[in-house]
Protein backbone atom coordinates (compact mmCIF):
# COMPACT_ATOMS: atom_id res chain seq x y z
CA UNK A 1 0.00 0.00 0.00
CA UNK A 2 1.30 3.40 -0.87
CA UNK A 3 2.17 5.64 2.03
CA UNK A 4 2.00 9.39 1.82
CA UNK A 5 5.02 11.44 2.79
CA UNK A 6 4.76 13.31 6.09
CA UNK A 7 4.87 16.76 4.56
CA UNK A 8 2.29 16.08 1.88
CA UNK A 9 -0.72 18.38 1.75
CA UNK A 10 -3.13 15.99 3.42
CA UNK A 11 -0.92 15.03 6.35
CA UNK A 12 -3.19 16.85 8.78
CA UNK A 13 -6.23 14.90 7.59
CA UNK A 14 -4.28 11.67 7.88
CA UNK A 15 -3.57 12.16 11.56
CA UNK A 16 -7.14 12.86 12.49
CA UNK A 17 -8.35 9.54 11.09
CA UNK A 18 -6.04 7.24 12.98
CA UNK A 19 -4.96 3.83 11.73
CA UNK A 20 -6.98 3.63 8.55
CA UNK A 21 -5.97 6.85 6.81
CA UNK A 22 -8.23 8.90 4.60
CA UNK A 23 -7.53 7.91 1.03
CA UNK A 24 -9.86 10.12 -0.95
CA UNK A 25 -10.43 13.75 -0.02
CA UNK A 26 -12.88 15.92 -1.93
CA UNK A 27 -13.01 19.45 -0.57
CA UNK A 28 -15.24 22.21 -1.89
CA UNK A 29 -14.91 20.88 -5.43
CA UNK A 30 -16.82 22.69 -8.13
CA UNK A 31 -17.00 22.46 -11.89
CA UNK A 32 -18.63 24.50 -14.63
CA UNK A 33 -19.43 23.44 -18.14
CA UNK A 34 -19.97 26.02 -20.86
CA UNK A 35 -20.14 25.76 -24.63
CA UNK A 36 -17.29 28.25 -25.08
CA UNK A 37 -14.85 30.08 -22.86
CA UNK A 38 -16.76 33.36 -23.12
CA UNK A 39 -20.28 31.98 -22.72
CA UNK A 40 -22.04 31.74 -19.38
CA UNK A 41 -21.78 28.23 -17.90
CA UNK A 42 -24.60 25.91 -18.94
CA UNK A 43 -24.12 23.64 -15.98
CA UNK A 44 -22.40 24.13 -12.68
CA UNK A 45 -21.54 21.52 -10.12
CA UNK A 46 -20.71 21.89 -6.48
CA UNK A 47 -19.24 22.77 -4.19
CA UNK A 48 -19.04 19.15 -3.04
CA UNK A 49 -17.08 17.85 -0.08
CA UNK A 50 -16.61 14.36 1.26
CA UNK A 51 -13.85 11.97 2.29
CA UNK A 52 -13.42 8.22 2.37
CA UNK A 53 -10.95 5.70 3.72
CA UNK A 54 -9.86 2.31 2.47
CA UNK A 55 -12.60 -0.33 2.52
CA UNK A 56 -15.29 2.30 2.25
CA UNK A 57 -17.94 2.86 -0.38
CA UNK A 58 -19.27 6.30 -1.28
CA UNK A 59 -22.57 6.45 -3.14
CA UNK A 60 -23.38 9.38 -5.40
CA UNK A 61 -27.15 9.71 -5.54
CA UNK A 62 -29.56 12.11 -7.16
CA UNK A 63 -32.09 12.53 -9.94
CA UNK A 64 -31.10 12.39 -13.60
CA UNK A 65 -28.92 15.30 -14.81
CA UNK A 66 -27.86 16.19 -11.29
CA UNK A 67 -24.14 16.00 -12.10
CA UNK A 68 -23.40 12.51 -10.76
CA UNK A 69 -21.39 11.33 -13.74
CA UNK A 70 -19.61 14.68 -13.99
CA UNK A 71 -18.48 14.29 -10.39
CA UNK A 72 -17.23 10.79 -11.22
CA UNK A 73 -15.26 12.16 -14.17
CA UNK A 74 -13.67 14.78 -11.92
CA UNK A 75 -12.67 12.06 -9.45
CA UNK A 76 -11.13 10.05 -12.28
CA UNK A 77 -8.88 12.97 -13.19
CA UNK A 78 -10.59 13.21 -16.57
CA UNK A 79 -12.04 16.65 -15.84
CA UNK A 80 -10.20 19.31 -13.90
CA UNK A 81 -12.22 20.89 -11.11
CA UNK A 82 -12.83 24.63 -11.40
CA UNK A 83 -12.00 25.10 -7.74
CA UNK A 84 -11.48 23.04 -4.64
CA UNK A 85 -9.17 20.17 -3.87
CA UNK A 86 -9.21 16.45 -4.65
CA UNK A 87 -6.57 14.15 -3.29
CA UNK A 88 -6.00 10.47 -3.70
CA UNK A 89 -3.41 9.42 -1.10
CA UNK A 90 -2.31 13.04 -0.98
CA UNK A 91 -2.06 13.70 -4.72
CA UNK A 92 -4.57 15.30 -7.10
CA UNK A 93 -5.72 12.67 -9.66
CA UNK A 94 -5.03 15.16 -12.47
CA UNK A 95 -1.34 15.28 -11.56
CA UNK A 96 -0.66 11.63 -12.43
CA UNK A 97 0.56 10.54 -15.83
CA UNK A 98 -2.04 8.49 -17.74
CA UNK A 99 -0.39 5.20 -16.85
CA UNK A 100 0.18 6.09 -13.19
CA UNK A 101 -3.43 7.14 -12.99
CA UNK A 102 -4.61 3.87 -14.52
CA UNK A 103 -2.58 1.98 -11.90
CA UNK A 104 -4.46 3.79 -9.14
CA UNK A 105 -7.93 4.49 -10.52
CA UNK A 106 -10.18 2.00 -12.33
CA UNK A 107 -13.41 3.06 -13.97
CA UNK A 108 -16.31 0.76 -14.77
CA UNK A 109 -18.52 2.19 -17.48
CA UNK A 110 -22.04 1.25 -18.39
CA UNK A 111 -21.53 0.43 -22.05
CA UNK A 112 -18.70 -0.51 -24.29
CA UNK A 113 -19.12 -1.27 -27.95
CA UNK A 114 -16.76 -3.89 -29.28
CA UNK A 115 -15.60 -3.78 -32.87
CA UNK A 116 -14.19 -7.27 -33.24
CA UNK A 117 -15.04 -10.37 -31.21
CA UNK A 118 -12.86 -10.61 -28.13
CA UNK A 119 -12.83 -13.37 -25.55
CA UNK A 120 -13.56 -12.60 -21.91
CA UNK A 121 -10.03 -13.65 -21.04
CA UNK A 122 -8.46 -11.24 -23.54
CA UNK A 123 -10.71 -8.47 -22.26
CA UNK A 124 -9.78 -9.00 -18.61
CA UNK A 125 -6.06 -9.17 -19.46
CA UNK A 126 -6.39 -5.63 -20.84
CA UNK A 127 -6.66 -4.50 -17.23
CA UNK A 128 -2.97 -5.35 -16.82
CA UNK A 129 -1.95 -2.84 -19.48
CA UNK A 130 -0.97 0.04 -17.15
CA UNK A 131 1.38 -2.22 -15.21
CA UNK A 132 3.87 -2.93 -17.97
CA UNK A 133 5.86 -1.43 -20.76
CA UNK A 134 4.06 0.08 -23.70
CA UNK A 135 4.54 -2.81 -26.14
CA UNK A 136 4.21 -5.72 -23.84
CA UNK A 137 3.45 -9.37 -23.42
CA UNK A 138 1.73 -10.48 -20.24
CA UNK A 139 3.90 -12.32 -17.74
CA UNK A 140 2.92 -14.98 -15.21
CA UNK A 141 2.06 -12.38 -12.57
CA UNK A 142 -0.34 -10.68 -14.98
CA UNK A 143 -2.02 -13.99 -15.74
CA UNK A 144 -2.35 -14.73 -12.04
CA UNK A 145 -3.90 -11.32 -11.39
CA UNK A 146 -6.37 -11.70 -14.24
CA UNK A 147 -7.37 -15.20 -13.11
CA UNK A 148 -7.79 -13.88 -9.61
CA UNK A 149 -9.97 -11.03 -10.87
CA UNK A 150 -12.20 -13.44 -12.78
CA UNK A 151 -12.51 -15.62 -9.70
CA UNK A 152 -13.40 -12.70 -7.45
CA UNK A 153 -16.23 -11.67 -9.75
CA UNK A 154 -17.40 -15.26 -10.24
CA UNK A 155 -16.64 -15.10 -13.96
CA UNK A 156 -13.99 -17.83 -14.24
CA UNK A 157 -16.34 -20.10 -16.19
CA UNK A 158 -16.86 -17.35 -18.78
CA UNK A 159 -13.18 -16.97 -19.67
CA UNK A 160 -13.30 -18.68 -23.06
CA UNK A 161 -16.61 -17.09 -24.11
CA UNK A 162 -16.83 -14.27 -26.59
CA UNK A 163 -17.67 -10.84 -25.16
CA UNK A 164 -20.66 -10.41 -27.48
CA UNK A 165 -22.34 -13.60 -26.23
CA UNK A 166 -22.73 -12.52 -22.62
CA UNK A 167 -25.92 -11.61 -20.78
CA UNK A 168 -26.17 -8.23 -19.05
CA UNK A 169 -25.23 -9.63 -15.66
CA UNK A 170 -22.34 -11.71 -16.99
CA UNK A 171 -21.00 -8.76 -18.93
CA UNK A 172 -21.13 -6.54 -15.86
CA UNK A 173 -19.07 -9.08 -13.92
CA UNK A 174 -16.48 -9.29 -16.69
CA UNK A 175 -16.18 -5.50 -16.97
CA UNK A 176 -15.72 -5.41 -13.20
CA UNK A 177 -13.08 -8.15 -13.42
CA UNK A 178 -11.03 -6.04 -15.81
CA UNK A 179 -11.16 -3.15 -13.34
CA UNK A 180 -10.00 -5.49 -10.54
CA UNK A 181 -7.12 -6.68 -12.73
CA UNK A 182 -5.89 -3.08 -12.70
CA UNK A 183 -5.30 -3.44 -8.92
CA UNK A 184 -6.60 0.06 -8.30
CA UNK A 185 -6.82 1.98 -5.06
CA UNK A 186 -9.88 3.89 -6.19
CA UNK A 187 -12.69 2.05 -7.96
CA UNK A 188 -15.23 4.24 -9.76
CA UNK A 189 -18.49 2.77 -11.04
CA UNK A 190 -21.12 4.55 -13.11
CA UNK A 191 -24.53 2.95 -12.57
CA UNK A 192 -23.24 -0.62 -12.37
CA UNK A 193 -26.71 -2.06 -11.60
CA UNK A 194 -28.36 -0.69 -14.71
CA UNK A 195 -29.83 -3.51 -16.88
CA UNK A 196 -29.79 -5.96 -13.95
CA UNK A 197 -32.82 -7.55 -12.30
CA UNK A 198 -33.31 -7.29 -8.56
CA UNK A 199 -31.38 -10.50 -7.88
CA UNK A 200 -28.48 -9.31 -9.99
CA UNK A 201 -28.51 -5.89 -8.34
CA UNK A 202 -28.30 -7.31 -4.82
CA UNK A 203 -25.63 -9.80 -5.85
CA UNK A 204 -23.50 -7.11 -7.51
CA UNK A 205 -23.79 -4.68 -4.57
CA UNK A 206 -22.90 -7.43 -2.10
CA UNK A 207 -19.94 -8.37 -4.27
CA UNK A 208 -18.77 -4.75 -4.44
CA UNK A 209 -19.06 -4.49 -0.67
CA UNK A 210 -16.97 -7.64 -0.17
CA UNK A 211 -14.38 -6.69 -2.77
CA UNK A 212 -13.99 -3.22 -1.31
CA UNK A 213 -13.33 -4.82 2.09
CA UNK A 214 -11.02 -7.59 0.91
CA UNK A 215 -8.96 -5.66 -1.60
CA UNK A 216 -8.85 -2.44 0.44
CA UNK A 217 -10.42 -0.35 -2.27
CA UNK A 218 -12.08 2.96 -1.88
CA UNK A 219 -15.14 2.70 -4.11
CA UNK A 220 -17.30 5.50 -5.46
CA UNK A 221 -20.54 4.33 -7.04
CA UNK A 222 -23.08 6.39 -8.96
CA UNK A 223 -26.44 4.72 -8.56
CA UNK A 224 -30.22 5.20 -8.47
CA UNK A 225 -30.71 2.40 -5.95
CA UNK A 226 -31.45 4.29 -2.74
CA UNK A 227 -32.17 1.24 -0.63
CA UNK A 228 -29.20 -0.79 -1.80
CA UNK A 229 -27.01 2.26 -1.17
CA UNK A 230 -28.32 2.50 2.38
CA UNK A 231 -27.68 -1.20 2.87
CA UNK A 232 -24.16 -1.47 1.48
CA UNK A 233 -22.51 1.98 1.37
CA UNK A 234 -20.63 3.85 4.10
CA UNK A 235 -21.24 7.34 2.77
CA UNK A 236 -23.71 8.93 0.42
CA UNK A 237 -23.57 12.23 -1.45
CA UNK A 238 -26.91 13.60 -2.58
CA UNK A 239 -26.88 15.85 -5.65
CA UNK A 240 -29.64 17.82 -7.30
CA UNK A 241 -29.18 20.08 -10.31
CA UNK A 242 -25.44 20.22 -9.68
CA UNK A 243 -25.82 21.23 -6.04
CA UNK A 244 -24.70 19.07 -3.18
CA UNK A 245 -27.83 18.74 -1.02
CA UNK A 246 -26.31 16.56 1.65
CA UNK A 247 -23.35 14.30 2.35
CA UNK A 248 -22.79 11.89 5.19
CA UNK A 249 -23.80 8.49 6.54
CA UNK A 250 -26.94 7.11 4.88
CA UNK A 251 -28.88 7.37 8.14
CA UNK A 252 -27.96 11.07 8.36
CA UNK A 253 -28.76 11.92 4.75
CA UNK A 254 -31.92 9.84 4.34
CA UNK A 255 -34.55 12.20 5.70
CA UNK A 256 -38.02 12.02 4.24
CA UNK A 257 -38.46 15.72 3.40
CA UNK A 258 -34.97 16.00 1.92
CA UNK A 259 -35.37 12.95 -0.35
CA UNK A 260 -38.94 13.87 -1.30
CA UNK A 261 -37.80 17.35 -2.29
CA UNK A 262 -34.68 16.17 -4.15
CA UNK A 263 -36.44 13.55 -6.22
CA UNK A 264 -39.75 15.43 -6.48
CA UNK A 265 -41.63 12.34 -5.30
CA UNK A 266 -43.49 11.66 -2.04
CA UNK A 267 -41.08 9.41 -0.15
CA UNK A 268 -40.90 8.14 3.40
CA UNK A 269 -37.95 6.76 5.31
CA UNK A 270 -38.34 3.80 7.64
CA UNK A 271 -35.70 2.20 9.77
CA UNK A 272 -35.04 -1.34 8.63
CA UNK A 273 -33.29 -4.22 10.31
CA UNK A 274 -29.79 -3.32 11.54
CA UNK A 275 -30.67 0.36 11.80
CA UNK A 276 -30.28 0.97 8.07
CA UNK A 277 -32.78 3.46 6.64
CA UNK A 278 -35.22 2.22 4.01
CA UNK A 279 -36.97 4.44 1.49
CA UNK A 280 -40.58 3.68 0.60
CA UNK A 281 -43.22 5.45 -1.45
CA UNK A 282 -45.55 7.51 0.71
CA UNK A 283 -49.06 6.09 0.79
CA UNK A 284 -51.19 8.84 -0.69
CA UNK A 285 -54.87 8.59 0.27
CA UNK A 286 -56.03 10.24 -2.97
CA UNK A 287 -54.13 7.65 -5.03
CA UNK A 288 -55.82 4.84 -3.15
CA UNK A 289 -59.23 6.30 -3.78
CA UNK A 290 -58.39 6.71 -7.45
CA UNK A 291 -57.49 3.04 -7.75
CA UNK A 292 -60.74 2.05 -6.12
Amino acid at each position, binding site marked *: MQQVAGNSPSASTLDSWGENPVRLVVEQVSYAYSASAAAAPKFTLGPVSFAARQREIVGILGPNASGKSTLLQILSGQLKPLSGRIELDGWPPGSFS*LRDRAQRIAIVHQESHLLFPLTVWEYVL*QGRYPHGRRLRFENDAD*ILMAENALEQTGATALAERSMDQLSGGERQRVVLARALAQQPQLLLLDEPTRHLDIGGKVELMRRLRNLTEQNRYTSVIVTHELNLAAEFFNWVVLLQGGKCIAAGRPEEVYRAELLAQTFGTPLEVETGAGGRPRVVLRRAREDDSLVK
Partner: protein
Amino acid sequence: MRAIKPGKIFSICGVLGAILFVVVVFSLKVGAYPISVRDIVLTLVRGMVGHWNSIPSSDRLVVFGLRLPRIALGILVGAALSVSGASFQALLRNPLADPYVLGVSSGAALGAICALAWFPHEPWAMQGLAFVGALVTIAAVYFLGRRGGQLDSTTLLLAGIVAASFLSAVIMFLMTTLSGRDLRGMAFWLMGDLATTPAVQLGFLFLLVLAAIGAIYSTSSDLNLILTGEQEAHHLGVNVPRVKLVVYVGASLLTGVAVSVSGAIGYVGLLIPHVIRMIFGSDYRLLIPASALGGAIAVALADTLARTIAAPTELPVGAMTAAIGAPVFIYLLKRSMV
Protein backbone atom coordinates in the same frame (compact mmCIF):
# COMPACT_ATOMS: atom_id res chain seq x y z
CA MET B 1 -5.26 -19.71 -18.82
CA ARG B 2 -2.61 -18.32 -21.10
CA ALA B 3 -1.67 -15.11 -22.77
CA ILE B 4 -0.19 -14.61 -26.22
CA LYS B 5 3.58 -15.15 -26.09
CA PRO B 6 6.27 -13.93 -28.49
CA GLY B 7 7.03 -17.61 -29.21
CA LYS B 8 3.55 -18.13 -30.61
CA ILE B 9 3.92 -15.10 -32.86
CA PHE B 10 7.30 -16.34 -34.11
CA SER B 11 5.99 -19.82 -34.86
CA ILE B 12 2.89 -18.55 -36.71
CA CYS B 13 5.02 -16.12 -38.67
CA GLY B 14 7.48 -18.93 -39.37
CA VAL B 15 4.72 -21.02 -40.91
CA LEU B 16 3.46 -18.06 -42.95
CA GLY B 17 7.05 -17.33 -44.01
CA ALA B 18 7.45 -20.92 -45.21
CA ILE B 19 4.21 -20.61 -47.21
CA LEU B 20 5.52 -17.37 -48.68
CA PHE B 21 8.75 -19.14 -49.70
CA VAL B 22 6.77 -21.88 -51.45
CA VAL B 23 4.74 -19.21 -53.26
CA VAL B 24 7.95 -17.45 -54.31
CA VAL B 25 9.43 -20.67 -55.73
CA PHE B 26 6.15 -21.44 -57.52
CA SER B 27 6.02 -17.95 -58.91
CA LEU B 28 9.65 -18.22 -60.07
CA LYS B 29 8.84 -21.45 -61.86
CA VAL B 30 5.86 -20.40 -63.95
CA GLY B 31 6.52 -18.38 -67.06
CA ALA B 32 7.61 -18.65 -70.67
CA TYR B 33 11.16 -19.83 -69.90
CA PRO B 34 11.11 -23.32 -68.33
CA ILE B 35 13.18 -23.82 -65.20
CA SER B 36 13.00 -26.70 -62.72
CA VAL B 37 12.25 -26.24 -59.00
CA ARG B 38 15.64 -27.78 -58.22
CA ASP B 39 17.40 -25.18 -60.36
CA ILE B 40 15.37 -22.38 -58.78
CA VAL B 41 16.28 -23.44 -55.24
CA LEU B 42 19.91 -23.96 -56.24
CA THR B 43 20.01 -20.55 -57.91
CA LEU B 44 18.43 -18.87 -54.89
CA VAL B 45 20.80 -20.55 -52.43
CA ARG B 46 23.87 -19.82 -54.57
CA GLY B 47 22.74 -16.23 -54.96
CA MET B 48 22.24 -15.88 -51.22
CA VAL B 49 25.71 -17.17 -50.35
CA GLY B 50 27.27 -15.10 -53.12
CA HIS B 51 28.35 -17.84 -55.52
CA TRP B 52 27.22 -15.88 -58.55
CA ASN B 53 29.66 -17.48 -60.97
CA SER B 54 28.37 -21.03 -60.43
CA ILE B 55 24.85 -20.07 -61.63
CA PRO B 56 24.10 -20.60 -65.35
CA SER B 57 23.73 -17.13 -66.84
CA SER B 58 20.27 -17.83 -68.32
CA ASP B 59 18.94 -18.99 -64.93
CA ARG B 60 20.52 -15.97 -63.29
CA LEU B 61 18.84 -13.62 -65.73
CA VAL B 62 15.41 -15.25 -65.43
CA VAL B 63 15.46 -15.63 -61.64
CA PHE B 64 17.30 -12.54 -60.45
CA GLY B 65 16.89 -10.28 -63.45
CA LEU B 66 13.26 -10.81 -64.44
CA ARG B 67 11.08 -12.75 -62.05
CA LEU B 68 12.42 -12.12 -58.55
CA PRO B 69 12.27 -8.29 -58.66
CA ARG B 70 8.64 -8.46 -59.64
CA ILE B 71 7.85 -11.00 -56.91
CA ALA B 72 9.72 -8.87 -54.38
CA LEU B 73 7.66 -5.89 -55.48
CA GLY B 74 4.50 -7.95 -54.95
CA ILE B 75 5.66 -8.94 -51.46
CA LEU B 76 6.42 -5.31 -50.62
CA VAL B 77 3.05 -4.06 -51.88
CA GLY B 78 1.07 -6.89 -50.29
CA ALA B 79 2.66 -6.41 -46.87
CA ALA B 80 2.26 -2.63 -47.02
CA LEU B 81 -1.39 -2.68 -48.12
CA SER B 82 -2.47 -5.33 -45.69
CA VAL B 83 -0.82 -3.70 -42.66
CA SER B 84 -2.21 -0.31 -43.64
CA GLY B 85 -5.69 -1.89 -43.92
CA ALA B 86 -5.40 -3.42 -40.44
CA SER B 87 -4.17 -0.05 -39.14
CA PHE B 88 -7.01 1.96 -40.69
CA GLN B 89 -9.51 -0.54 -39.27
CA ALA B 90 -8.20 0.15 -35.77
CA LEU B 91 -7.59 3.87 -36.26
CA LEU B 92 -11.10 4.54 -37.54
CA ARG B 93 -12.69 1.75 -35.51
CA ASN B 94 -14.35 0.49 -38.67
CA PRO B 95 -14.12 -3.11 -39.91
CA LEU B 96 -14.69 -2.02 -43.52
CA ALA B 97 -11.85 0.49 -43.56
CA ASP B 98 -9.04 -0.11 -46.04
CA PRO B 99 -6.89 2.23 -48.12
CA TYR B 100 -8.88 1.46 -51.28
CA VAL B 101 -12.38 1.90 -49.80
CA LEU B 102 -11.41 5.07 -47.95
CA GLY B 103 -10.10 6.74 -51.10
CA VAL B 104 -6.57 6.84 -49.67
CA SER B 105 -5.26 4.79 -52.59
CA SER B 106 -6.84 7.27 -55.02
CA GLY B 107 -5.26 10.15 -53.13
CA ALA B 108 -1.88 8.46 -53.33
CA ALA B 109 -2.42 7.73 -57.05
CA LEU B 110 -3.23 11.40 -57.68
CA GLY B 111 -0.04 12.35 -55.85
CA ALA B 112 1.98 9.92 -57.96
CA ILE B 113 0.48 11.26 -61.21
CA CYS B 114 1.20 14.82 -60.16
CA ALA B 115 4.79 13.74 -59.58
CA LEU B 116 4.93 12.29 -63.10
CA ALA B 117 3.59 15.53 -64.53
CA TRP B 118 5.67 17.98 -62.51
CA PHE B 119 8.91 16.18 -61.62
CA PRO B 120 9.36 13.45 -64.24
CA HIS B 121 13.09 13.13 -63.50
CA GLU B 122 13.01 13.02 -59.70
CA PRO B 123 13.00 9.31 -58.71
CA TRP B 124 11.64 9.90 -55.17
CA ALA B 125 8.98 12.41 -56.19
CA MET B 126 6.41 9.68 -56.87
CA GLN B 127 6.77 8.10 -53.43
CA GLY B 128 6.88 11.48 -51.72
CA LEU B 129 3.81 12.93 -53.40
CA ALA B 130 1.92 9.64 -53.12
CA PHE B 131 2.57 9.77 -49.35
CA VAL B 132 1.35 13.37 -49.21
CA GLY B 133 -1.72 12.43 -51.26
CA ALA B 134 -2.52 9.58 -48.86
CA LEU B 135 -2.05 11.81 -45.79
CA VAL B 136 -4.27 14.58 -47.14
CA THR B 137 -6.99 12.20 -48.29
CA ILE B 138 -7.27 10.32 -45.02
CA ALA B 139 -7.35 13.60 -43.11
CA ALA B 140 -10.13 14.90 -45.36
CA VAL B 141 -12.13 11.66 -45.15
CA TYR B 142 -11.67 11.60 -41.38
CA PHE B 143 -13.14 15.08 -41.00
CA LEU B 144 -15.91 14.53 -43.55
CA GLY B 145 -16.79 11.29 -41.77
CA ARG B 146 -17.61 13.02 -38.51
CA ARG B 147 -21.17 13.71 -37.56
CA GLY B 148 -21.93 15.80 -34.50
CA GLY B 149 -18.30 15.55 -33.36
CA GLN B 150 -18.43 11.73 -33.44
CA LEU B 151 -16.84 9.46 -36.01
CA ASP B 152 -19.80 7.80 -37.73
CA SER B 153 -18.93 4.57 -39.53
CA THR B 154 -21.49 4.91 -42.35
CA THR B 155 -20.70 8.58 -42.96
CA LEU B 156 -17.02 7.73 -42.93
CA LEU B 157 -17.34 5.03 -45.60
CA LEU B 158 -19.53 7.31 -47.73
CA ALA B 159 -16.94 10.06 -47.40
CA GLY B 160 -14.29 7.58 -48.54
CA ILE B 161 -16.31 6.50 -51.58
CA VAL B 162 -17.06 10.11 -52.53
CA ALA B 163 -13.39 11.04 -52.13
CA ALA B 164 -12.34 8.06 -54.29
CA SER B 165 -14.69 8.97 -57.15
CA PHE B 166 -13.79 12.66 -57.01
CA LEU B 167 -10.07 11.88 -57.04
CA SER B 168 -10.54 9.44 -59.93
CA ALA B 169 -12.16 12.24 -61.92
CA VAL B 170 -9.19 14.50 -61.26
CA ILE B 171 -6.81 11.67 -62.23
CA MET B 172 -8.70 11.15 -65.52
CA PHE B 173 -8.46 14.86 -66.25
CA LEU B 174 -4.72 14.91 -65.56
CA MET B 175 -4.15 11.84 -67.68
CA THR B 176 -5.69 13.44 -70.75
CA THR B 177 -3.32 16.38 -70.35
CA LEU B 178 -0.29 14.10 -70.06
CA SER B 179 -0.04 13.79 -73.82
CA GLY B 180 2.48 11.55 -75.51
CA ARG B 181 2.58 9.07 -72.62
CA ASP B 182 1.70 5.44 -72.68
CA LEU B 183 -2.00 5.68 -71.84
CA ARG B 184 -2.54 1.93 -71.77
CA GLY B 185 0.33 1.62 -69.32
CA MET B 186 -1.23 4.33 -67.17
CA ALA B 187 -4.61 2.62 -67.21
CA PHE B 188 -2.93 -0.63 -66.17
CA TRP B 189 -1.06 1.15 -63.41
CA LEU B 190 -4.29 2.64 -62.08
CA MET B 191 -5.85 -0.82 -61.93
CA GLY B 192 -2.86 -2.03 -59.97
CA ASP B 193 0.11 -3.38 -61.87
CA LEU B 194 3.47 -4.82 -60.87
CA ALA B 195 5.01 -4.94 -64.37
CA THR B 196 6.84 -1.62 -64.15
CA THR B 197 10.08 -1.63 -62.19
CA PRO B 198 10.15 1.37 -59.86
CA ALA B 199 12.67 4.11 -60.52
CA VAL B 200 14.07 3.89 -57.01
CA GLN B 201 16.01 1.07 -55.40
CA LEU B 202 13.75 -1.72 -54.15
CA GLY B 203 15.92 -2.11 -51.06
CA PHE B 204 15.18 1.44 -49.92
CA LEU B 205 11.46 0.88 -50.35
CA PHE B 206 11.71 -2.30 -48.29
CA LEU B 207 13.47 -0.39 -45.52
CA LEU B 208 10.79 2.31 -45.62
CA VAL B 209 7.98 -0.25 -45.42
CA LEU B 210 9.68 -2.17 -42.61
CA ALA B 211 10.19 1.05 -40.66
CA ALA B 212 6.52 2.00 -41.03
CA ILE B 213 5.34 -1.49 -40.06
CA GLY B 214 7.71 -1.41 -37.09
CA ALA B 215 6.36 1.95 -35.93
CA ILE B 216 2.79 0.69 -36.17
CA TYR B 217 3.77 -2.55 -34.45
CA SER B 218 5.19 -0.61 -31.51
CA THR B 219 1.64 0.60 -30.80
CA SER B 220 -0.01 -2.80 -31.16
CA SER B 221 -0.79 -3.20 -27.44
CA ASP B 222 -2.40 0.23 -27.51
CA LEU B 223 -4.39 -0.60 -30.65
CA ASN B 224 -5.87 -3.64 -28.89
CA LEU B 225 -7.25 -1.33 -26.23
CA ILE B 226 -8.36 1.38 -28.66
CA LEU B 227 -10.44 -1.27 -30.43
CA THR B 228 -12.52 -1.72 -27.28
CA GLY B 229 -13.11 2.03 -27.11
CA GLU B 230 -11.02 5.18 -27.13
CA GLN B 231 -12.43 6.38 -23.82
CA GLU B 232 -11.73 3.06 -22.13
CA ALA B 233 -8.25 2.92 -23.61
CA HIS B 234 -7.61 6.40 -22.22
CA HIS B 235 -8.76 5.26 -18.77
CA LEU B 236 -6.42 2.28 -18.97
CA GLY B 237 -3.48 4.63 -19.59
CA VAL B 238 -3.19 4.74 -23.39
CA ASN B 239 -2.02 8.02 -24.88
CA VAL B 240 -4.67 7.86 -27.59
CA PRO B 241 -3.72 10.96 -29.66
CA ARG B 242 -0.08 9.87 -29.83
CA VAL B 243 -0.98 6.34 -30.94
CA LYS B 244 -3.38 7.66 -33.55
CA LEU B 245 -0.73 10.01 -34.95
CA VAL B 246 1.86 7.22 -35.27
CA VAL B 247 -0.63 4.87 -36.92
CA TYR B 248 -2.04 7.59 -39.16
CA VAL B 249 1.37 8.61 -40.51
CA GLY B 250 2.60 5.00 -40.70
CA ALA B 251 -0.44 3.70 -42.56
CA SER B 252 -0.41 6.66 -44.97
CA LEU B 253 3.27 6.03 -45.68
CA LEU B 254 2.57 2.36 -46.40
CA THR B 255 -0.29 3.25 -48.74
CA GLY B 256 1.81 5.91 -50.45
CA VAL B 257 4.72 3.52 -51.09
CA ALA B 258 2.44 0.71 -52.29
CA VAL B 259 0.44 2.91 -54.66
CA SER B 260 3.50 4.70 -56.03
CA VAL B 261 5.02 1.42 -57.22
CA SER B 262 1.94 -0.60 -58.12
CA GLY B 263 -1.09 1.64 -58.56
CA ALA B 264 -4.31 1.02 -56.69
CA ILE B 265 -4.64 -2.66 -55.78
CA GLY B 266 -7.94 -3.27 -54.02
CA TYR B 267 -9.23 -5.78 -51.47
CA VAL B 268 -5.84 -6.77 -50.06
CA GLY B 269 -5.99 -4.27 -47.19
CA LEU B 270 -9.61 -5.11 -46.51
CA LEU B 271 -9.61 -8.89 -46.70
CA ILE B 272 -6.25 -10.13 -45.47
CA PRO B 273 -6.58 -8.71 -41.92
CA HIS B 274 -10.07 -10.22 -41.67
CA VAL B 275 -8.90 -13.65 -42.81
CA ILE B 276 -6.01 -13.49 -40.32
CA ARG B 277 -8.44 -12.47 -37.57
CA MET B 278 -10.69 -15.42 -38.37
CA ILE B 279 -7.79 -17.85 -38.10
CA PHE B 280 -5.62 -16.39 -35.33
CA GLY B 281 -7.82 -13.91 -33.42
CA SER B 282 -7.75 -10.13 -33.35
CA ASP B 283 -4.73 -9.43 -31.13
CA TYR B 284 -2.78 -6.76 -33.00
CA ARG B 285 0.55 -8.01 -31.67
CA LEU B 286 0.01 -11.07 -33.84
CA LEU B 287 -2.31 -9.54 -36.41
CA ILE B 288 0.19 -7.00 -37.78
CA PRO B 289 3.10 -9.35 -38.62
CA ALA B 290 0.73 -12.11 -39.73
CA SER B 291 -1.17 -9.67 -41.97
CA ALA B 292 2.09 -8.44 -43.48
CA LEU B 293 3.06 -12.00 -44.44
CA GLY B 294 -0.49 -12.89 -45.48
CA GLY B 295 -0.69 -9.82 -47.73
CA ALA B 296 2.69 -10.67 -49.24
CA ILE B 297 1.51 -14.22 -50.00
CA ALA B 298 -1.76 -12.98 -51.47
CA VAL B 299 -0.28 -10.37 -53.81
CA ALA B 300 2.63 -12.59 -54.92
CA LEU B 301 0.15 -15.35 -55.73
CA ALA B 302 -2.33 -13.01 -57.41
CA ASP B 303 0.39 -11.52 -59.59
CA THR B 304 1.61 -14.98 -60.61
CA LEU B 305 -1.94 -15.81 -61.71
CA ALA B 306 -2.31 -12.43 -63.41
CA ARG B 307 0.71 -12.98 -65.61
CA THR B 308 0.00 -16.64 -66.47
CA ILE B 309 -3.79 -17.01 -66.66
CA ALA B 310 -4.03 -15.37 -70.08
CA ALA B 311 -0.41 -15.87 -71.18
CA PRO B 312 1.25 -14.49 -73.23
CA THR B 313 -0.85 -11.38 -72.37
CA GLU B 314 -0.86 -10.16 -68.77
CA LEU B 315 -3.69 -8.93 -66.59
CA PRO B 316 -3.16 -6.10 -64.11
CA VAL B 317 -2.80 -7.65 -60.64
CA GLY B 318 -5.51 -5.29 -59.34
CA ALA B 319 -8.03 -6.96 -61.65
CA MET B 320 -6.94 -10.31 -60.22
CA THR B 321 -7.28 -9.27 -56.56
CA ALA B 322 -10.69 -7.76 -57.29
CA ALA B 323 -11.86 -10.85 -59.17
CA ILE B 324 -10.89 -13.09 -56.24
CA GLY B 325 -11.47 -10.58 -53.45
CA ALA B 326 -15.03 -9.54 -54.26
CA PRO B 327 -16.56 -13.04 -53.98
CA VAL B 328 -14.52 -13.79 -50.84
CA PHE B 329 -15.69 -10.54 -49.32
CA ILE B 330 -19.34 -11.34 -50.08
CA TYR B 331 -18.85 -14.77 -48.54
CA LEU B 332 -17.43 -13.25 -45.35
CA LEU B 333 -20.21 -10.65 -45.28
CA LYS B 334 -22.89 -13.34 -45.55
CA ARG B 335 -21.31 -15.28 -42.74
CA SER B 336 -21.15 -11.94 -40.88
CA MET B 337 -17.44 -12.33 -40.32
CA VAL B 338 -16.83 -8.73 -41.29
